[in-house]
């Protein structure tokens, strides 16, 4: 057993931390206020190779592993959760399904663009009436000659407003229920494809989150990802992978809140001494640090299993996602509490972390869905 990061992973962690703290953290409060997309930061991140972490070198990526992706997601979100989310989505929700299920032509056509940041990627699963209930989606894809005709809409899509490549899920045969869902690669400028309402979010506000609208969108049959009916499988496999990164985002946000609360507790005085000398505060700090530590280990372990090529990582990915996201909510809540009245103001960043943490329990499978995945895995003896 070895808990050490490799030499390469340590160097990566150090350099990304430096980049994130110097270049991203100072912009985070303003991005949160305006909701403006961090275009320049994404450009800088692309120069470092952060948009194609898991994309192999032959497709223009860095060719790193999933533990490395988790390390990057944590460090970016520790500095600016919006920027971290944008980059994570590009890697694990847009590039990953193409890498894992795409044809050689699809990989050659799309992965270099996603790796270089020439275009950003997004994924379209959720709909107005179908979130946790993926099979409840209503978007359809009708085969007509060499094309599929897509109709419907998707909601709450990160990167929607800026992305050029979308992995979109739609029914090719509704009668087959979830086995009738297929996945498609849809390019932004395809006629009939438009971006709808921009979401005014509680946190992660600079992520160009919006609605996707498909009105008789003609997608060439070459853009079908996998086979017809593979969509649900592709979706679940992709989510298993990306849930590890949600866990990593959560660890990053929690660590950011802890760092600020810890520094504040050493500085702020009440009853003649720094508040870190009070046992209630010490108890909170101990709980926060321990939960973060546990969450980080769970995230690394799930990523390690993925790197080992284990076929089933649903249970461990869901455990990491659920535990880390609830940890982030709990730790950021306590960080606000330690800051007292100041924590409730926008002068201190912990209130932003608190707002940002909440969505982790909702997107890419709510905490409730994660528990169902975990329990069903256990019942199947996995």
């Amino acid at each position, binding site marked *: 057993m070895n808990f050490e990061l*490799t*030499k390469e992973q340590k160097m990566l962690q*150090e*350099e990304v931390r*430096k980049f994130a703290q110097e270049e991203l953290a100072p912009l985070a409060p303003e991005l949160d206020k305006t909701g403006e997309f961090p275009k320049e930061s994404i450009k800088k991140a692309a120069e*470092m190779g*952060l948009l194609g972490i898991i994309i192999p*070198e032959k497709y223009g990526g*860095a060719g790193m592993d999933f533990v490395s992706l988790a390390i990057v997601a944590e460090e970016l979100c520790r500095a600016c959760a919006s920027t971290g989310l944008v980059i994570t989505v590009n890697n694990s929700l847009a590039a990953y399904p193409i890498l894992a299920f795409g044809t050689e032509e699809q990989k050659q056509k799309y992965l270099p663009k996603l790796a270089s940041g020439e275009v950003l990627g997004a994924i379209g699963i959720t709909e107005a009436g179908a979130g946790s209930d993926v099979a409840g989606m209503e978007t359809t894809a009708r085969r007509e000659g060499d094309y599929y005709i897509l109709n419907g809409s998707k909601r709450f899509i990160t990167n929607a407003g800026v992305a050029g490549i979308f992995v979109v899920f739609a029914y090719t045969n509704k009668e087959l229920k979830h086995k009738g869902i297929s996945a498609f690669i849809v390019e932004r400028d395809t006629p009939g494809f438009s971006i709808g309402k921009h979401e005014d979010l509680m946190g992660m506000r600079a992520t160009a989150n919006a609605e996707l609208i498909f009105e008789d969108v003609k997608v060439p049959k070459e853009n079908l990802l996998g086979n017809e009916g593979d969509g649900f499988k592709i979706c679940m496999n992709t989510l298993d992978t990306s849930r590890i990164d949600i866990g990593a985002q959560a660890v990053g946000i929690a660590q950011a809140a802890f760092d600020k609360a810890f520094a504040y507790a050493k500085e702020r005085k009440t009853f003649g001494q720094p508040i870190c000398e009070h046992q209630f505060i010490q108890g909170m700090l101990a709980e926060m640090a321990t939960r973060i530590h546990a969450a980080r280990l769970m995230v690394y372990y799930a990523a390690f299993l993925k790197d080992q090529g284990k076929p089933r990582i649903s249970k461990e990915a869901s455990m990491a996602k659920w535990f880390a996201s609830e940890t982030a909510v709990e730790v950021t809540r306590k960080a606000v509490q330690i800051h007292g009245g100041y924590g409730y103001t926008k002068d201190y960043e912990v209130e932003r972390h608190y707002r940002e943490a909440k969505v982790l329990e909702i997107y890419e499978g709510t905490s409730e869905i994660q528990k169902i995945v975990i329990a069903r895995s256990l019942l199947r003896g996995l």
Partner: protein
Amino acid sequence: MDIIVCIKRVPETAEAEIKVDPNGKDIVKDTLNFDINEADNYALEEAVLLKEKFGGKITLISVGEEECEHILRMGLARGADDAIRITDEKFSELDGFATAQILYSVIKDIHFDIIFTGCIATDDGYSQVGPTLAELLGIPHATLVTSIEVKGGIARVHRELEAGLLEAVDIKLPALFAVQTGINKPRYASLIAIRRAASKELKVLSSKDIGLEEPRRKIKIESLFVPPVTKRAEIIEGSPPEAAAKLAEIIKEKGLL
């Protein structure tokens, strides 16, 4: 253009709590983070910028134990081509003069056009290695360098003097430049470069390899101590506008304004 950059691994002390260790001759380092010395990082970037312009090779050299391989690898990831680590049990408790002798023993056999060092190390603050090394090699040097332009074997360098003055000097290469912080904006290593650097083999040299039995030392640390708190410090109380007004008054009173 072949360039050598000498780098040092130092503890990050800017925001850390510093304690003197029980023997009174060093600080407690167990809880500190270590990184490349700040000015050395700027020196490396300056070397990479020159390499991008003129081609050639960058060799990094550091004196230190195994832990200092990390800063050498990060240097490789940021654009250096080769890295040499010099280590030996005899090479402990070094002062600037001793370090310069060790570096000299290695560099005298390597071809170079420019040697870069940082202008000061943030741990001991001696600022001696650069100029001493240049003297040992018998080449010209400039310290506190804030810009460099190379043309036809001559470098036009700007040096930072007191009171905001800059001095421009032309120096014939080969030469050594001790670089000031802020001369450029050091880049971030790309992920691909990190991957390559992580697995690259580093050259490790011992006292025997470099033919230097024991460097001479000129400085011996007698004791380290935290300066006693004087009574001259005054904490200015009040709201920010009140405190600012009081501060302005004091500055005026002392004739500084």
